[in-house]
């Protein structure tokens, strides 16, 4: 064992200081949600963006009469950032971005809006802070994910992100948990275990839907075996789409819940 002690001492610190200013978030090169630029959207195109969008994040409005940007509805809660819309749009209406920190408190903030409405000041504000101080215990439930989200959640405890330093811990028992973190579209067989886990948690308790599947069903939602995300069953407090969301996006969303970060997405856009 002395070998490992020596090895650890020699290796030094591997943990990033992020989200402290100037520190490395570890997501160099990671592509996020494509950015929508309505001013580049051309009338008379063949709606290629919507036709290549597998999960239906981009849709042509049924009642649309006009050509151009007002025809499009865009829901980042369904986006799997596959970049097919970026490849398909000839006029640059969608462009690749590194906007992956898409955690929001209101589901409507994931839907693109020309003039985003600011989040109303809630009377709950400050409540989480008062209740938990700076600490949070999470019970994770996999309700039918592809294991991509789990892989990134597990990464939170690797030495690079070292989630513990932020006072956030995963716990085995729902009895000790403050937050129920759900991945997957919710399969018919996981529906009851998910509800039971929630019932076993003491008040006050929060729910975070992690990954596009948990937010909206994603590519797996519907069919004979799946729901369309956690919303169908339990009240969600934080939505974090992403396929899967990377560890830095997960940390941002957890800090948003703890009111240690300001919301960064409004009306489907990075808030100015």
């Amino acid at each position, binding site marked *: 064992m002395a070998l490992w002690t020596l090895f650890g001492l020699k290796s030094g610190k591997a943990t990033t200081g992020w989200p402290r200013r100037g520190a490395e978030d570890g997501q160099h090169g990671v592509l996020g949600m494509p950015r929508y630029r309505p001013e580049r959207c051309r009338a008379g195109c063949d709606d290629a963006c919507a036709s290549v969008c597998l999960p239906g994040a981009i849709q042509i409005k049924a009642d649309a009469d006009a050509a151009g940007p007002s025809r499009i509805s865009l829901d980042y809660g369904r986006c799997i950032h596959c970049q097919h819309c970026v490849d398909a749009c000839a006029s640059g209406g969608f462009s690749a971005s590194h906007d992956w920190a898409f955690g929001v408190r209101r589901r409507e903030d994931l839907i693109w809006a020309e003039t985003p409405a600011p989040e109303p000041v809630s009377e709950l504000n400050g409540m989480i802070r008062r209740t938990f101080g700076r600490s949070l215990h999470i019970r994770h439930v996999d309700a039918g*994910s592809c294991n991509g989200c789990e892989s990134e959640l597990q990464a939170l405890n690797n030495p690079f992100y070292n989630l513990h330093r932020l006072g956030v811990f995963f716990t085995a028992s729902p009895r000790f948990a403050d937050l129920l973190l759900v991945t997957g579209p919710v399969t018919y067989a996981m529906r009851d275990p998910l509800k039971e886990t929630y019932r076993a948690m003491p008040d006050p308790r929060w729910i975070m839907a992690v990954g596009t599947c948990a937010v909206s069903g994603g590519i797996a939602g519907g069919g004979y075996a799946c729901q369309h995300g956690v919303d169908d069953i339990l009240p969600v407090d934080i939505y974090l789409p992403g396929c899967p969301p990377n560890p830095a996006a997960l940390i941002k969303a957890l800090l948003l819940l703890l009111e240690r970060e300001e919301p960064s997405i409004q009306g489907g856009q990075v808030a100015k």
Partner: protein
Amino acid sequence: MNGTAAQILAPHELPAACRALIANGGRMQMAYAWFPDPEGPAEARYLASTGARQPWTLWRCHPAHGEKIPSLAEISPLLGWYEREMTDLTGIAFDGHPEPYALVLHEGAHAERPPLDPRAPANRPLALTAALRNLPEVTGRDVQLLPFGPVRADVLESAQFLFFYIGEGILHYQPRLFFKHRGMEKRFEGLTAKPGALLAERVSGVGGVAHSLAYCQAVEAAAGCAVPPRAQWLRVVLAEMERLYNHLHYLGHLCHTTTLKVGEAQGKLLEERAKQINARLTGSRFLWSVIAPGGLRHDLDTTSLGAALETLRGEFTGYAALLERTNSHLDRLFATGVLNRQAAFDQGATGPVERASGLDRDLRRDHPYAAYPALPPAVPTRDTGDAYARMQVRVAEIEASLTLIQQALPRLPDGPVASEYRASPRTEGLGWSESPRGSLYYAVHFNAEGRLARVKIKSPSFSNWRVFPLVVHDSNMMDYAINEASFGLTIAGCDR
């Protein structure tokens, strides 16, 4: 189907054919059913291998209405799960099955018609009533039943494990999987070939490259499309990079179960480094959204990849050497969860699990695809079949993958990375790849409109989950977590 020698067999001819195949050293690979005509009956298909570089054997079987197919599970035990899956999803019945219970569908699930039947109502969720568990009777003084899951400790995939035990001793172990069954195969139906690659990546997230590769190769075979050389070579690079981050995770997680804390931290740190390299190369930490039918979606800039991987190799070599010198870690692995060669063969073990039990099989070498004919991989094997052997195989595979990528990078051909393909109506294709966890098959069928009519996915974890309980019966509780980690299973791929 491409690469296969196909034969139509009547149900009663199957047992003799299966016995002959096994007597000649062949092995069943998978079986599935589909509905060639939306209004007609289901067809069962059996895929078998007869040896390296030999065409696959494919049997097609058309049971008459209401006719049962004789179960082959007593002849080739690994087929047991495939037959149960066919019954659940397509309604084909088997005669004389030793375990005639639902598998893929939850016990207590009700469907008007089997979900893959084209006449089944679309998008109607399965109903679920109180589940009866099909458990063997284990009685005796002090025997207890421990049901663990489906919500388990830590961040883990959902499954339930049932242990009959006395004190520390496990008498009988039964995993209940398929809580995560999402009906992924059905989601492909009606799609064109291109978006299918996105679905394939998300069948088992940490095997996304292997899945999209097998899927695309099946589609390309159906369309008769030739993939440009540069894309073939880059596909090999991507597939080996997927093996790297998976195996590094495996080593870290194995240390977690033997409570070697610094070893766990280092394994997971190296996994993180590998994922960050993935992201810089492709924009995705999982290497997704690159492979597509016809080649790649875009070219990759590999300029700094070689140097990044050499740095990783340096750290990995020191790490692996330390693990081999840590008695507290090795003591927990020696003679733990021994899977003997015969059981591994009969029950269908695949990937590092079978190679640790002395079976020298690897699709990259035995049925080469992409650029593997020009880049033959080293295939490490061990004979002892214990957790230590499974770890050693993976350590050697990390070294082999790094070597293979470094061989490939300077020799990457120039040229385009995508070619045109057109899915023709009523065609079918078989694709395969050796994922980090073992053999993976995709069988795709296109309908009269050139859209996907059926996609069958055989994931490596489906094979290895069937084998795993064999090494748990009659073992002890203290070893369970180590034993499970040493198999390196995923549940998403198995459940689909």
